[in-house]
Each structure stands twice: as C-alpha cells, then as structure tokens.
C-alpha cells in the first residue's frame, strides 16, 4: 500500500475520476482541489472556488465526468469540464441548513444530497428549462442525514442519520426513469417511500453501504456495526473506537475504518447469518524492540504507573481518524484496491492482494 500526505489539514471528503488518475478533495476549507498523478507525484491542476462554506461532500461521476459538490453554505454545484476549466452550475436545494453528503446515482441522471435540515434532496436535470430541479424526502427523518448510498437499480437510496436510524428510501423520479422492477426490499416504490427502517442502534449512523447486488446493506453506527441481508439482520458489537465509514469489497466482506486509524475487515457468513471480525488491515508492526534500562523502567513506573515501553505513537499508516473509504478498482463485487482519507491530511491506497498475503489468517470471502 502507498501513503501520500497531501496537507496538514484534514481531508473533509474526496472523489476519484473514472481512470483513477485524478482525485478531487477538500482540504477543510471552501475550495476543492484536483490533483493529478504524474509519475509518482501528485500535482495540483485545478482549484474550484465557488462555495462560501466548507465543502462537505464531493462525488465524481465516472461516465459523464461531472463533479457534484455540496457544502455548509446550503448549496450544491455541478461542475462540468469545458476545455481546460471546470464550470459550476448552481443547484438550488431549498434547504435551510448545511448539506452534509452527496452521491451520484449509478446511472448519473440524478444525485442525492443529505443535509442538516432533516431531509434528502434528490436532484435531476430538467431538459426543458436547462436546470437542476430537486425533490425532497422528509418523512420520517428526525435529524441530520450523515451518509447516503445508492442501490444499483438507480431508485433505492440508503440514508444514515443522526436520529439513530438507517433507512432505505425510494428516490424514484418518474420524469427521468421508468418504473423499477421489484427488489429484495419491496415492489411498490413511489417517491419517498420508506422501504426499510432499522431498529436497535443507539448511535449516529456515520456510514452506509449497499452491497454490489443491492440485496445487502451495512451501516456503521457509533456503537455497533449492523448488517442486513434479507431477511436476516445481524450486528457486530465493536471492541474498538467507533467506525466512521464502511464499504463492501465483495458480496460477503466489508472493510470499515474510523477513529482507530486503521481499516478493519469483517466477514459475513450467510450460512450462520453472522458477521465476524476478519482482521486488522494495516502495516505490519516493525517497531524496534530496544531493551529497557532499569532507570527507564522506574521512570515509566513513576510517571505512567506501567512497566510497558509502549510510546504514545500510533503505529498505523494513518495518524488520525479515517473519515472516508472509496473503492478504486474492481467495484464492490471484487475490489482490488481501495483508498482511505483521513483527518491527518493523508491518503492511503490499499491493495487487497498484498494485504491478503501479508496478513496471515486474513480471508476475504
């Protein structure tokens, strides 16, 4: 795996382009920086300045090469590349609080924005007026929407919120698509219909992800990691600090990361309908074990009441919480590489094959 430290500020959000040569990210301010990989260096090629508040979500549509960004200034912009510059188009979201996350739908004809005004704005392009129009999903959301993920059928949308619930809504817009076929979550899907609402979690839902087939959904809550595969629902209580983001790398395996600064693998066994901890994915420990002098031992005992020689230095690749995971190659069905960005301003690219061979007992089903 490789690690690149972009800056000292946290990376609020990032998105990759189709061939993974360019990354767009927000360095915790009002701008979006686009870096291009040239050789082994990352060069900043564009700076997109239009937002008046921190940019909280970026998504890059691979096929149509459009970037959508949303920010705390309650706006979203759709950027299209004209020649050598990115030109923004304002999208009126009709929200009165900050926008928190944004995602293009799989077919890229709509995108959804989760916001602090307790609603999701689903926006689509109206050809006649040459304008992006939005529709709101309000009920029964009671608090800020923190994360979104689309189902592969382009209609269902999973949303995790601060009211401790993860819900799957229908975002069917009849102007841009035809009626969807029945799925594992239901067959009647009018706009705004709640197809599934979770119970049992008692923490904010920080990250949500559909599996590649769309029949499974997993979300990272503050206290546990729940998982729903129709019809069974299971969860895994974590023994670590809360997880902030989760993604499927195959139909049965999940990678999640959070305040513990390293990604973790979870494996779902459909026979036993149980989720289990697969392994910690990180650089193998290479700390030099220097011998402790008797003086150091006494000093440790005096200062820290312990005889360990562990220093307060993180041995993981990321030095601060990981806030976002994105799949680079292979899709959610057979991911070969994924990328994590965090509050330490760094981006790490993890290769699944090398991880499998490096960590013993690591099984990615």
């Amino acid at each position, binding site marked *: 795996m490789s690690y690149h430290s972009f800056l000292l500020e946290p990376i609020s959000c990032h998105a990759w382009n189709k061939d993974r040569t360019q990354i767009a990210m927000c360095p915790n301010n009002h701008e979006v920086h686009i870096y291009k990989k040239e050789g082994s260096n990352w060069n900043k090629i564009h700076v997109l300045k239009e937002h008046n508040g921190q940019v909280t979500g970026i998504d890059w549509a691979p096929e149509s090469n459009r970037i959508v960004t949303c920010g705390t200034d309650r706006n979203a912009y759709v950027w299209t590349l004209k020649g050598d510059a990115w030109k923004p188009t304002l999208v009126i979201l009709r929200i009165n609080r900050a926008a928190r996350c944004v995602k293009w739908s799989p077919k890229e004809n709509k995108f959804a924005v989760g916001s602090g005004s307790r609603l999701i704005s689903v926006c689509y392009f109206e050809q006649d007026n040459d304008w992006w129009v939005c529709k709101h999903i309000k009920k029964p959301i009671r608090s800020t929407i923190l994360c979104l993920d689309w189902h592969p059928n382009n209609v269902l949308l999973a949303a995790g919120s601060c009211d401790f619930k993860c819900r799957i809504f229908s975002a069917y817009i009849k102007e841009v698509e035809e009626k969807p076929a029945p799925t594992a979550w239901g067959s009647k899907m009018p706009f705004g219909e709640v197809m599934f609402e979770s119970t049992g979690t*008692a923490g904010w839902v920080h990250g949500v992800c559909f599996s590649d087939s769309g029949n499974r959904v997993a979300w990272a809550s*503050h*206290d*546990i990691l729940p998982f729903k595969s129709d019809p069974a629902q299971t969860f895994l*209580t*974590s*023994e*670590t*600090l809360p997880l902030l983001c989760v993604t499927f790398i195959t139909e049965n395996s999940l990678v999640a990361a959070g305040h513990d600064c390293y990604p973790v693998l979870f494996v779902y066994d459909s026979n036993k309908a149980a989720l289990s901890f697969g392994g910690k994915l990180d650089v193998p420990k290479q700390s030099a074990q220097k011998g402790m002098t008797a003086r150091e031992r006494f000093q440790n005992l005096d200062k820290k009441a312990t005889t360990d020689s562990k220093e307060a230095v993180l041995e993981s690749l990321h030095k601060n919480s990981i806030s976002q995971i994105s799949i680079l190659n292979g899709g959610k069905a057979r991911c070969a590489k994924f990328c994590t960005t965090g509050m330490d301003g760094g981006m790490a690219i993890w290769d699944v094959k090398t991880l499998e061979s490096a960590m013993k007992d690591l099984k990615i089903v």
Partner: protein
Amino acid sequence: MSKNTVSDRFRKVDVDEYDENKFVDEEEGGENQLGPDEAEVDSLIRQYPSLFTRQHDRAEGLVLKVLSSFKSTDIEKGVQSLDKNGVDLLMKYIYKGFEQPSENSSAVLLQWHEKALSAGGVGCIVRVLTARKTV
C-alpha cells in the same frame, strides 16, 4: 408636507414576517406538545418519589454491594463468566457507581473497570456513552 408623514404605524410592522425565505421550523408544533406532559410527569414524580427513581437507586446499591464483596482475585473470573451484553451492562453500572463515590467504592470499581475494559474493549465504553437506556 405630504399626507403620509402623519401616521407612523408603519414602524410597528414586523418586516421579517413577510420575508419569503424566512425559516419556519415545522416541527415546533410537535415539540410544544411534549411541554405540558413533562411538567405533569415532573409534578407526579415529586409527589411520589418512591415510584421511579428509587427502583433504579436500589438496583444500583445492590450491584455496588455485590461488586465490593468480590475478592480482587475473583474479579477476573467474574468478568469472564459474563457474555457480551453482560459486560456492557457491568460497564454501565461501573460508571453509574463512579458518579456517586463513597469511601471505598472507587477503588473497587476501578479494579472492575480494568478487567471489564480488557474483556469488552473501548467499544464497550462507547456503548455506555451512546446507550439510550441508562441504568
């Protein structure tokens, strides 16, 4: 002088009310309904204090007695015998016990805390903080 300087009623108009973009919190109606209920419940609790809080306090006192009666060497075995939910519940009582320290309770609770932490991990403490149902 023109006629319209006579009346100054226009100064009492609240212009913000007519602003189209004005934010109206739609949930306000719902929240107001909780208001009177809370006052009712509050007054009832004051009238009959034995109903609600006593049970919780009694349970907590009992748990504290049990925890202090364990020998230090047996604490680890006690924690091992609990399942995941049990460890979470134990941690909740430990923190509740910390809130009201008596002469020896904190030391005993700290020993329990150390063993419970090695069994449940940091996630156990996070669950104590986020749980909607407190003990």
